[in-house]
């Protein structure tokens, strides 16, 4: 199972690529709604790439509730646990 920290780092990398922000600025708890260069389309692009990378589906309710990198990482972790529950 991928660790939460690994997921957070991967989401930060993807978010940096999609938003053009330096990865250092994309701290896990940064409220993306307050970042001028981030809009809902960019968040959707991040989610679409993350879904593909982890082979998961994130619900639309979750997608439109995301405000931070941590939120995305938690959704990924929950989806991975559902797909591959611990013994």
């Amino acid at each position, binding site marked *: 199972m991928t660790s939460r920290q690994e997921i957070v780092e991967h989401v930060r990398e993807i978010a940096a690529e999609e938003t053009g922000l330096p990865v250092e600025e994309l701290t896990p708890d940064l409220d993306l709604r307050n970042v001028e260069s981030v809009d809902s*389309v960019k968040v*959707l*692009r991040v*989610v*679409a790439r993350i*879904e*593909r990378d982890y082979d998961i*589906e994130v619900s639309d309710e979750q997608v439109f509730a995301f405000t931070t990198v941590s939120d995305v990482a938690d959704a990924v972790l929950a989806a991975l646990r559902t797909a591959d529950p611990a013994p």
Partner: protein
Amino acid sequence: MIPNEPAQPGPISLPWHVLPDYQCFGCSPHNAAGLRLRFWESTDGDGLEAPLTFGRQHESYPGVVHGGIVATVCDEIMGNLLVLRTGVTHFTVTLRTRFLTPLAVGTAYRCVATVRPEPGAAGQRQATADVLDAAGDTVASASGTYQPASADSSRQHLALSEADRQLLDDAMSTADQVSGRERG
């Protein structure tokens, strides 16, 4: 469709092209109401891509391409990629599309599809397709699950004469000469 063709050689000849009057809404050159999609090997050589420019006949809101058409393009390219890679007809089981931004009528896009190399336990295949704008940004993203059609299933569902069936079987068996990578 107005072609904005890729630089790489093509387009690829699909197995269906041997049928003199096939009417696929997505890829037949004979269907005047269809999309008449044409396909090229993707630039990385691993998938398939199609240049896209939609006209007003594909419109939803004024100036906006209908989302169902975009989903159809994604399904079409994934399905044809599977046929070319495996030489077997596949039926769509699930199609999931994320629309990231509206697509504009009259604007050039391209759709790029890839397929996961290994089939699932039941033989099903997973494929993905992205529609990209001229800047390379994703505007729509789709994933699909496809079930290979057995010979019986194909015979049951495809309305073909025996002569056309033989033509298609021959074309499918040589699909690897065009672009397939899994055929022995």
